[in-house]
């Protein structure tokens, strides 16, 4: 294991007593310090079970998991000191006031009164909860409860933060707010592992993404790397102002450009037409495509590079839609 790894999971297997199949089935991956790593997959893929093992609430059937160099099964207490967990559903202590939820959490981690009060004030401010710190959480909306759970998680300054489906059930505004916070925290050096079934979220947040399905990791790469897995996955779309008589000529000219795999005409009307040009690296063809169109005497109205979505990657890997 390299010194820089925050998480290392090796051949992890979990089978629940009542189940005939493995919930996690031989999963291995490594997360570097300071990385945002995403486990992406449909419900039941084994993401939450993997997080459970890493956060000491689930014992592995086989394989091992280490956190900042500590074997989790062997020394769960040392692991607990270094992690924080934001679960899918609120588990906030409803008997306590908002501020106390933070200060007691810090006290559980042995942080002195002075430090925990200071940190609570700071985090309540940062997360926009300062005005309502003496309420109980019953009156909190889903988004506020989520923010409070994040504040709580940060109270003991963990090395690794686990976010299980962090933006599930959040309104778009809260989701954006959360994404910004996650980027900010990561910029300060926090390692983050998150699970999601939201392709867009994985794409926007994660440095690397492992796609999980039926207990296995299918692929593990950067978002860009994953998208390259689809052959001729990138495309250029060019909208051309041209009469019907020129359209065949333009298609032939585009098809003749070296590197072009396929040209498709779509969305046409009397005056203009869009061509979708599939290629392995479509972004390098912007110049040649524009020139080819102009050479026919037609006008270019719009030109854009289309990346494949992670959704398409998932479909191409499993043959199924994510949801």
């Amino acid at each position, binding site marked *: 294991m390299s010194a820089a790894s925050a998480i290392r999971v090796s051949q992890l297997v979990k089978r*629940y007593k009542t189940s005939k199949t493995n919930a996690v089935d031989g999963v291995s991956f490594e997360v570097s310090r300071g990385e945002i790593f995403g486990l992406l997959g449909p419900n039941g893929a084994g993401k939450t079970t993997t997080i459970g093992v890493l956060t000491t*609430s689930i014992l592995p059937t086989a394989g091992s998991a280490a956190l900042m160099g500590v074997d989790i099964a062997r020394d769960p207490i*040392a692991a607990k000191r270094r992690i924080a967990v934001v*679960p899918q559903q609120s588990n906030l202590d409803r008997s306590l006031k908002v501020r*106390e939820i933070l200060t007691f959490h810090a*006290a559980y981690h*042995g942080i002195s009164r002075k430090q925990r009060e200071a940190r609570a004030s700071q985090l309540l401010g940062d997360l926009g909860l300062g005005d309502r710190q003496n309420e109980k959480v019953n009156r909190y909306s889903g988004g506020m409860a989520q923010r409070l759970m994040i504040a*709580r998680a940060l109270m003991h300054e963990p090395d690794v933060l686990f976010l299980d489906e962090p933006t599930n059930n959040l309104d778009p505004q809260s989701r954006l707010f959360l994404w910004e916070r996650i980027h900010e925290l990561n910029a300060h050096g926090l390692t983050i592992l998150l699970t999601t079934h939201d392709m867009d979220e994985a794409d926007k947040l994660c440095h690397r993404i492992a796609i999980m399905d039926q207990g296995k990791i299918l692929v593990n790469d950067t978002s860009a790397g994953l998208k390259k897995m689809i052959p001729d996955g990138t495309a250029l779309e060019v909208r051309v102002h041209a009469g019907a008589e020129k359209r065949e000529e333009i298609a032939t000219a585009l098809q003749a450009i070296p590197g072009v795999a396929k040209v498709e005409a779509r969305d046409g009307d009397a005056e203009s037409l869009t061509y979708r040009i599939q290629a392995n690296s479509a972004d390098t063809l912007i110049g040649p495509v524009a020139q080819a169109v102009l050479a026919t005497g037609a006008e270019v109205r719009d030109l854009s590079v289309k990346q494949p979505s992670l959704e398409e990657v998932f479909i191409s890997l499993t043959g199924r839609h994510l949801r």
Partner: protein
Amino acid sequence: MLAAKAFLAILRRDLVVTGREFVPFLMQALMQPMFFLFIFGKVLPGIGLADPHLATLMLPGIVALTGMIAAMQGVTLPLVLDLGFAREIDDRLLAPLPVWCVVLEKVLFGAMRGAIASSVIFPLGRWILGDGFVVRPDRIPALIGMVILTALVGSTIGLLMGTIIKPEQISLMFTLIFTPLLFTGCTYYPWGALDNIRWFQILTLLNPLTYCSEGLRYAMVPPIGGRPFPTLPLDWILLALCVSVVVMFLAGNRTFYRRVVT
């Protein structure tokens, strides 16, 4: 060291929460014993339907029952809800201490509640029973010891129940467990007086509350007619109670662990 700090912080959390609801807690714990003392200690002897000594013999049983139930309730109900769906305990389970320490804290906290509820019976009894309130003054250390032990018995039983019962079964289980516990625990009658109903006398020995009630009778009931009041032997009482505490704690700790670490 860190585990000890975490343990104390978790205990403080429970004390803060209970402190805020101290009056409701006392009302919940004391309403039933108050009426029992009044009806059985005052009304029935007053209209000639019960022996005037009944109050003296029943008071230790009421102290035992009140302490035990307050301790059980302090552990069972929060655990059933927490493990069932609220999961509020997760934050404490992620604190840097072994899981059994979280369990131990629950038990000690429940026992504190039980011991407080038991203690309040004394001024309450004095107020309701007036001259009928009789407690021997020479066994105060034994009395304190029995109050604490009774509370621990209650909180460890509460632990096991809280880790077994599912939220949807709460009301059924309370009836199925509390009612027999209540009536076979020698609360309202001394064990020795059951000689005539031998099978029932033996049955009561299966209930830990019997030993609590008898132990408190040993510590509280003064000699009647110059003769010490007969109870179960003290060494048997202590043995039974210690076995109950240890067995219930170990069993409850085991089921708790299975509920939170799968």
